[in-house]
């Protein structure tokens, strides 16, 4: 299982996790983005943006 990029703790991912999914780190609560599967890779989720404009 991958490590949380913020606190280093192990992040437990369910089987149906897909790329682009957002999850919260159980240990530090940071919002993480699943950037890859097989193997799972994680990154801190980008800052909140309401919309794109048009």
């Amino acid at each position, binding site marked *: 299982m991958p490590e949380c990029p913020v606190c280093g703790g192990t992040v437990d991912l369910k089987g149906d996790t*897909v790329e*682009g*999914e*957002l999850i919260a780190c159980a240990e530090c609560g940071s919002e993480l*983005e699943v950037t890859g599967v097989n193997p799972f890779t994680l990154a801190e*989720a*980008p*800052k*909140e*943006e*309401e*919309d*794109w*404009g*048009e």
Partner: protein
Amino acid sequence: MIIVKLGGGREINVEGVIKDLAELDQKFLILHGANAVRDEIAEKLGKPTRVVTSVSGYSSVFSDKDAIDAIMMGYSGIKNKRIVELCQRNGINAVGLSGIDGKLIQGERNKGIRVRKGEKVMILRDYSGKPKRVNKELLQLLLDHGYVPVICIPITDENNVAINSENDDIVNVLQEALRADTILSLIEAPGYLENRDDENSLIQTITAGELKAREDQVEGRMKRKMLALRKLIDNGAKTVVISDGRVEHPIKGALAGKGTTIK
């Protein structure tokens, strides 16, 4: 210097606008939309414009590759060139440019919005972003040699990729560069309406301060539009007029104060 912002709806009287502009003795440039014709093209090509709604309730166009193709066909293709043709036929030496030509409008790609997909919350990225700066040298070069820039999306992102963006934001980066004294925004309504559905609830004049107060009362798209308008005043515009683009003489009307004037 006048910045003329043309809405992209079907009912905007583009011919009337150009005929009025042909009689203008001041320098001006045109920023135009084309959402109506873009949607039609996208529909007929079997890739209709898609709108996505973020978890915080904002809806916006999903700009994937097909959507950028439709923008290139609709905005910088048919709408831009038919406006340039109309200008030329009325003695206005127009040069049509999208934001990627000569990196005229440079922006930054949006980082992604959050959307619900069944039980999951997903990050959704596309080809859209916010404009940050303008190639002022290119604009000035054309203006100084008697050309009238006719501008539209797409703009270019930090990696020179073509992206969608909002004309309300683009007019602001244009204003930052050009410090125009007057900005005319022509829309498919008499002006800024107190009540959207009542064409008689037109607000004739509004100060930047009043605009700020109204901004605090609303949410979402309307809030963003008001913020963008207020920024124009902050960036040196003396007069911003939101006026009816469907009438016979839209520019003359706006210059005569018809519609909503922000001072």
